[in-house]
């Protein structure tokens, strides 16, 4: 096997390796996202988003957005 053939062979192997890495992470990321999304939607019920004291996340959801709003209020002028 001469040098040119070897270089071509290595080139093809490395291309394959990069494809493998990309495919692996592509499926991993898609799988991760779909796992979270599917689990999240199957577990969700309309009552969850109420603002009751127990068994609902309405307050937490509101607080998160409220905090983001307040921090933007400070950070945008400073930017």
């Amino acid at each position, binding site marked *: 096997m001469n040098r040119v053939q070897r*270089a071509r062979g290595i080139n093809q192997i*490395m291309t394959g*390796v990069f494809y493998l890495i990309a495919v692996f*992470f592509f499926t991993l990321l898609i799988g*991760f996202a779909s796992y979270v999304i599917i689990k999240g939607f199957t577990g969700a019920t309309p009552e969850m988003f109420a603002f009751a004291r127990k068994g609902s996340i309405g307050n937490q959801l509101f607080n998160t957005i409220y905090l983001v709003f307040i921090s933007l209020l400070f950070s945008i*002028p400073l930017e």
Partner: protein
Amino acid sequence: MYCVFRENSEQQYISLIKGENMKKQNMFAKEYAWRGLMTAGGLLVIAITICIGAFLIYKGSGTFTIFGHSIFEFLGSTDWNPEDNAQGGGTVGALIFIVGSLCTCGLALLIATPFAVGSAIFMIEIAPKFGEKFYRPIVEIFAGIPSVVYGWVGLTVLIPAIKKVFHLQVGHSVLAAGIVLALMIFPTISNVAADSIHSVPKDYRMAAYGLGSTRWQSIYKVVIPAAGSGILSGIILGLARAFGEALAVAMVIGQTTALPKGLFSTTKSLTTEIAAQMGNATEGGEMKTALWTMALLLFLLSLLFILLIHYFSRPKKDKE
């Protein structure tokens, strides 16, 4: 202004000029006011940063000045038993947490770097169309996912899997923390590396092809050396993110105050110990002061990482 040169009377002309001057003055006033506001904002940000640093140094040095521990005890001893009162007398060896942090972050880097650089090369060099259209946006989305989601998925998916595959009693381990962190820092490294590979001039590749090299030869002999400093700053950026991560690590590392004996042992890291103990330590006590010192250590480390990034991404002089 040009309307002035029509047949206006002298009076009108003068009043127009006056109005123009007023407007001009007004604009200058606005210009200076806004510039002052911008300067004040910038100075405030700088002042806040310096204040945070000074506050951390003030609080963190208490371990050495008030409670009289040596810096070698703090950095080199595994004996972590600080008293939760202002009298002190406990021990503040933080080596367990330092080693825990280094182990998990090192492992995460070891896992993430080859994959991240590989996928950066894939999306720029090998499949640019697919890379720019699909792969990169998806990777970018993952840079923005909150760490608690990573921790939660690690806790519910990864830990049972590790338990099953390696036949362990507990799945919480350094390995799990390393994998979760690797997944977290993968997008960061990949994005920065892809940017720096993208900014390598196209002529370099064409020259390499012209000399008869294959694509792989042009990648590892020309593109990677040319983009090396950018890839390195990406890796350090990822390391800094991994170092500062508390929540995701705390969920999967098992929180045991012991040095890790291997990949599968549980331990603690700097951030998780601070997060776990901050709430119930007495203000001014030895425990809280030691935690402040650990926070100071984290601050200094992140400062070091930032300095390293600046060092690696500084504009290079042209070599002959």
